Structure formats: structure tokens, C-alpha cells
């Protein structure tokens, strides 16, 4: 059984070169230590890189329409998980509650070294 071409193959080396340049941008951007620049360099660039890989290497854009729908539905489940749980996890106190262990964890520092 052989494969039947269902995609037009673009210049993959050119796309790879763009991805490498974006990687360099994200690393250099992180060295500025300016919060907004670091966030854009890290996560903005990651989103662009993921889009380029999905579109040009995985060919999601020329796949049957319900394939991207399937992937988007799965992503939505992740968003629902985040929206449902995040308020409790990201905040350490509310109107009638305080998460004391989380506060203590913050005060005692991040990590314990195992010597």
C-alpha cells in the first residue's frame, strides 16, 4: 500500500529556518528581563511557532474540516478545566476564606534541596 499525496509540499527548509529564527528571538527576548518583552518573546513566539508547525508540517489546514474541529473541541475541554479550577488555585484568599498552607508555602520559599 502506498501513500496518496493529499497535500502540496511547501519549501520546508524555509519554514524550518523561520522557526529557528523565532527560537533565537524567544531566547534573546528572555535575556532582557523586561517582563512584557519576556512574556511576548516566550509565549507569543511559542504560539506562532506552534501555528507554523501545525499548518505547514502537520497540514491541519488542508485536512478534512472536522479534524481541526476535533482538535479545537479537545482544547476547549482544557480551557474549561482551567476556568473551573484556576480561581481556587491561583488565589490564596477570598471574601470568606484564606488558604493558609498556600500562604505558608509562599513564605517559606520555593524549594527544599535534598542533600
Amino acid at each position, binding site marked *: 500500500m502506498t501513500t496518496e499525496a493529499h497535500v502540496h509540499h511547501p519549501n*520546508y527548509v524555509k519554514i524550518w529556518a523561520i522557526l529557528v529564527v523565532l527560537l533565537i528571538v524567544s531566547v534573546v527576548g528572555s535575556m532582557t528581563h523586561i517582563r512584557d518583552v519576556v*512574556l511576548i518573546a516566550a509565549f507569543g513566539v511559542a504560539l506562532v511557532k506552534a501555528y507554523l508547525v501545525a499548518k505547514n508540517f502537520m497540514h491541519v489546514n488542508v485536512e478534512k474540516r472536522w479534524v481541526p474541529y476535533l*482538535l479545537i473541541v*479537545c482544547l476547549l475541554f482544557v480551557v474549561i*478545566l482551567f476556568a473551573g479550577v484556576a480561581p481556587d488555585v491561583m488565589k490564596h484568599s477570598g471574601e470568606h476564606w484564606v488558604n493558609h498552607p498556600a500562604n505558608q508555602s509562599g513564605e517559606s*520559599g*520555593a524549594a527544599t*534541596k535534598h542533600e
Partner: protein
Amino acid sequence: MSASAKPIANTRSGTGIPTARLITWWVIASEIVIFGGLLASYIMHRIGHPEWAESASHTITWAGAFNTFVLLTSSLCAVLAHKAADAHDGPKAAKLLRLTSLGGLIFLGVKAFEWTADIREGFVLSSGGFWAFYYTLTGLHGLHVLAGMIIMLFVASDAAKNQELQRVECIGLYWHFVDVVWIFLFPLLYIAR
């Protein structure tokens, strides 16, 4: 093996997508929920615990960046293998798939170096929330890289004989997904401090 001797699931295409590729997309969809859930949990905990920034400052950025470069390059090899398979050039596809696997091996080697350095510094799975997520996320991702490498070598051995060339695209899709997961792991674990 002739096409008629194959199980019907291998040859039918009720959705308009060959079954093998259809299954690969379903695997990727389920992996989105697995990795997405873990990443979402990490992000919300990371925002809730700004003190984790101190732990994150111990990860080795250059190693993460190098591994990103390795995975991007191996993804290029995988998609070129797909192109070769479309041109019915099995031996070339096999060679490119083996190169992709080599990329996976280099990635795992660098990851082993990183884990060794972290553990020698005293940062283990139980050293705090950040390290628990770090080892879980990179460990699970590493297992996916290993699985992809093994499957790819089997696909390459068939492709070298110009057999089952449709599998080249499927293993490539999986590999690109593993690449996309790393594209998000890199800034989350190595850059955001």
C-alpha cells in the same frame, strides 16, 4: 502483502481520511487533553505561586533551547520523509525517518544530562511544586519521544522496502505534535522566571 489481504480497517476510508491517519488524529486529540491538562495545571499553580520563579531559575536555558532546535530539525526531517513517501521514494523516506530518530536520541541525551545536573544540585521530584511539575512534564514528554523513536524505526524498516509508505505521514504527524508540546514546555519551564 497485497492490499486485498489486509484487514478492512486498514484500507477503508469511510470519513474521507485513510484509517491510519484518522487514528493518528484521534491519538493526537487525546494527547491534547493529557498534555493540555498538565500544562493548564502547571500554569495556574505557577501564577498562584510566584515563589516558584526561584526554582525555575535553576533550569538550564541553553539546554532547553538546544533541545528545541533539535526537535525542530527532527520535525523537518519527518516532513521531508513524508514528502519522499508521497514521491514513492521509500529508501529516502526511511533514511530521513532514521535521521528523525537520531534527533530524538540527541534530545533524550541532553535531557538525561539536564536531569543529572538538577539531581546533583539536590533538586528532585519532591523538592517542591515546581520540580514535581518539571519532572512530570519533561518525563512524560520524554516517554513520548522514546515511543515515537521506536515506532519510527519500525516504519523506516518497512519504508526502506517501499512498503506501508502511508505510515510515514502518520508517524510524522505524531512527531510534529510532540514537537508542538515541547514548543510550549520550553518557555514555561526555561524562560518564564
